[in-house]
Each structure stands twice: as structure tokens, then as C-alpha cells.
């Protein structure tokens, strides 16, 4: 059973529909026991970092998520919250990935970085079958720098981490759930880990 972590972030609905399209069953919950017993955990997110972190802290999810042993996939703001620190309202995050999240400077182009951008320097099990320069859909104003945990790079003004992986923790800055067939394959790769 796959669990989607329920918290005060948007776009959970899109993730649920994406799992339904690929025939995966799931539970949406913030219950610790259910989360701990799941085969796979998806930690989605759209919204503002400090509000989301405050919510996670109130419910102890900020301690629970880093302690999970099964494969965990964080997307968008979910991924940012798994990093060390976000410039968005100077937010201390969960620190699963030892990297900071910084705002795109105006010189990078329009912010938020909105639309389909290409991935390169792909590695790891989630990108299996994904061709180099495949396109995925991004909407974000903040991004994690490239680091040893980076498994896919995207360029917008500067190279940034489009995907990260460390042990059982996986993350994607883009919205795999609405990234066409490429996004669907990445989700399927995660679910078959």
C-alpha cells in the first residue's frame, strides 16, 4: 500500500489522480502507524515552506518522515522541505538532503520558473527508461543547488537539482503527476522499487 502524506499543502488531488491513472491504490493520511506500515510513502507539496514546516512540526511529521525506512518520494515543496534550509521565509527544513534551497534571481528569467524544462545528468532507479533531455513540468520560485545527492539536473539561470536521492529518500522538484508520459514513468519507477 502506498501512503500519501496528508498535510496543509495543495496538489494532493493531482497526485491521487495520477496514481489512479497508473492503477495504484493509495491511502491519504497523517496517521503515524499507517505511514510507518506503508510500502511506499509520497510526500507531495505546493505552497509556502515555513507554513508547511510549522504544520509538520505541530504533528510530529518533521521527525517521522526522516525516520522512515521504506522508499519515500517528496515532490516540489515536499522535496524542498526534505532539504536543510529554504530561503523562503528563512525556514529550517528536515535536513534529509544536505543542501540548501535558494530563490531564483530575477536574472534567471521570469519567476516562478513555469513550464516544461528538460532534464540531464540522469542517474538512479527513478529515471530508468527516461531519455536524456526529457521534459517535465515545473512551477517553483525556489530550488536546491546541485549536490552529491543530485540524480537529475535542470537549468534555469543556474543548474539546480531536479531530482535527489539519498538511501531510501527520493525527491523531484517538478510535478511528475502532471508531467505527461515521462512523469508517469517516474512515478511507476518509484512504485516498483
Amino acid at each position: 500500500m502506498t501512503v500519501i502524506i496528508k498535510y496543509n499543502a495543495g496538489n494532493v488531488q493531482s497526485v491521487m489522480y495520477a496514481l489512479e491513472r497508473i492503477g495504484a491504490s493509495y491511502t491519504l493520511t497523517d496517521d503515524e502507524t499507517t505511514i510507518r506500515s506503508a510500502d511506499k510513502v509520497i510526500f507531495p507539496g505546493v505552497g509556502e515552506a515555513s507554513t508547511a514546516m510549522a504544520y509538520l512540526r505541530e504533528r510530529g511529521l518533521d521527525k517521522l518522515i526522516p525516520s522512515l525506512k521504506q522508499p519515500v518520494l517528496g515532490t516540489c515543496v515536499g522535496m524542498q522541505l526534505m532539504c536543510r534550509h529554504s530561503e523562503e521565509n528563512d525556514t529550517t527544513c528536515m535536513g534529509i538532503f544536505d543542501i540548501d534551497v535558494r530563490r531564483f534571481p530575477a536574472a534567471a528569467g521570469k519567476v516562478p520558473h513555469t513550464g516544461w524544462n528538460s532534464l540531464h545528468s540522469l542517474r538512479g532507479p527513478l529515471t530508468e527508461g527516461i531519455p536524456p533531455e526529457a521534459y517535465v513540468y515545473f512551477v517553483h520560485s525556489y530550488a536546491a543547488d546541485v549536490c552529491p545527492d543530485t540524480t537529475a539536473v535542470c537549468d534555469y539561470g543556474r543548474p539546480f537539482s531536479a531530482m535527489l536521492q539519498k538511501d531510501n529518500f527520493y525527491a523531484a522538484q517538478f510535478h511528475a503527476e502532471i508531467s505527461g508520459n515521462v512523469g508517469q514513468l517516474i512515478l511507476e519507477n518509484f512504485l516498483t522499487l
Partner: protein
Amino acid sequence: MLTKRIIPCLDIKDGRTVKGTNFVNLRDAGDPVELGAIYAAEGADELVFLDITATVDERKTLIELVRRVAHAVNIPFTVGGGISSVADVSALLNAGADKVSINSSAVRNPGLINELALEFGSQCIIVAIDTRYVSGEHIVHTHGGRKATELRTLAWAKEVEERGAGEILLTSMDTDGTKAGFALELTAAVSSAANIPVIASGGAGTMAHFTEVFTTGKADAGLAASIFHFKEIGIPDLKQYLAGEGIPMRLTN
């Protein structure tokens, strides 16, 4: 590289897709869910659904339609038409819409943009601006372009950005339905003034019009309806053509 986006727009009335010339004389172009799924498979980068006759009764039909679309398509889609409150937006996002587009309600109550951006995040709030050239000035219009406001288009575009809009959907009522090309100068002016993406709409008739709107017009996305619905231009052909013209495109086939 970040690509320019091609966005088919589906005008919805009574759960069906319609599109007329200059917003009158509507014609039926099919089932929106089926059409949306076809466009997604053909390589459309996003979809926009505009409910052009949003009454209370039809609202429920729209929510159901949004659910069906969200099940059927794996690309982002926006829903607009008759949205005037946090509750309206919440219902649409919960049904599976990725973004909403507001227009008249933002003109009536600009604070709504701030409120929605704060509640749901800028990334899902598009402000649609319908504009017409009147006595030497670009003036914002509402009610499907019929009613002039006091707002100057460029100043309003900057204001909606400051208030937290994530994107601007700019429709020129002068070019809409003419198939004579997008309003290039105005689109370029708005796109240069705003540091958020601008979706250009109104006037697409040929593939070259899209090249122009992405180069001269500086648009981030191009939106069209009837040329796609009536298969005058195929999305795969258009994207292949634009890629050949040196426009960054996501080619899926």
C-alpha cells in the same frame, strides 16, 4: 531549456466545447474531456477550460467535468469562468484543476488576487486580462470583452503581478476571432513589464503567427481554440514547425 507552451483553450457551455467569432455565434466542437485527452496525447503543453456561462446550476456540472478531466489527462490544466471567491477556487482545485483563471472578479475586487495567492499559492492563480484598443489606449474589458473598465492594460498587468498572480492570460479583443495574428506589440509590452509568464491569446490563424508571438511578442505561451478544434492546425505539426523555426518546444513524438 525552458520551452514555449502551446495551449488549446476549450470554451465550455452546458458541458460541451464551443467557440465562436468575437465571442458570439457559438459552434459546437465536441466533448471537452475527450478533446482534452486528445490534445494531451498530441503534445499540448497545458489545457485551459473556460466556462463561458457559469451559473449556479452549471457550477456543479463544471466541477464534475473538472473531475473527469483530471482523471483523463496527465498534463496541467486551468479552469476559468465565473470564479469570484476562495470557496470557488477551493472547489475547483479539490476537484483536480491545477490552476484557476480569474477575470471580471479580479477587476471588481483586486484584493481577491492577494487573497487567493496567499491561500493557494501564486503558482495556481492566473489573472486573465481581456483588452481592447480604445481611443489610442489599451483598456481592460470585462464581460467577455463587452464592458470597458477604467483600467489601463499595462498598469493592470503590473498590478496583478504585485498582488500575487502567477501568470497573465492576455486576450486581445481586437484580434480575437480574426485569425489575422496575435497582438504582438501589446503582448511584448506586457511580457516585458511583468516578471511572470504571459500567455498570449486572440488572433492565431497560421503557424507563423505563433513564431511571431514567441519572438516579437515575447510571449511565454500561445493559446488558441478554433484552429485546433476544427483541425485547421494540428498540434504535432505546429510544434514541429516551431522547433524548426528555432523556438524551444517540447516534442513528444
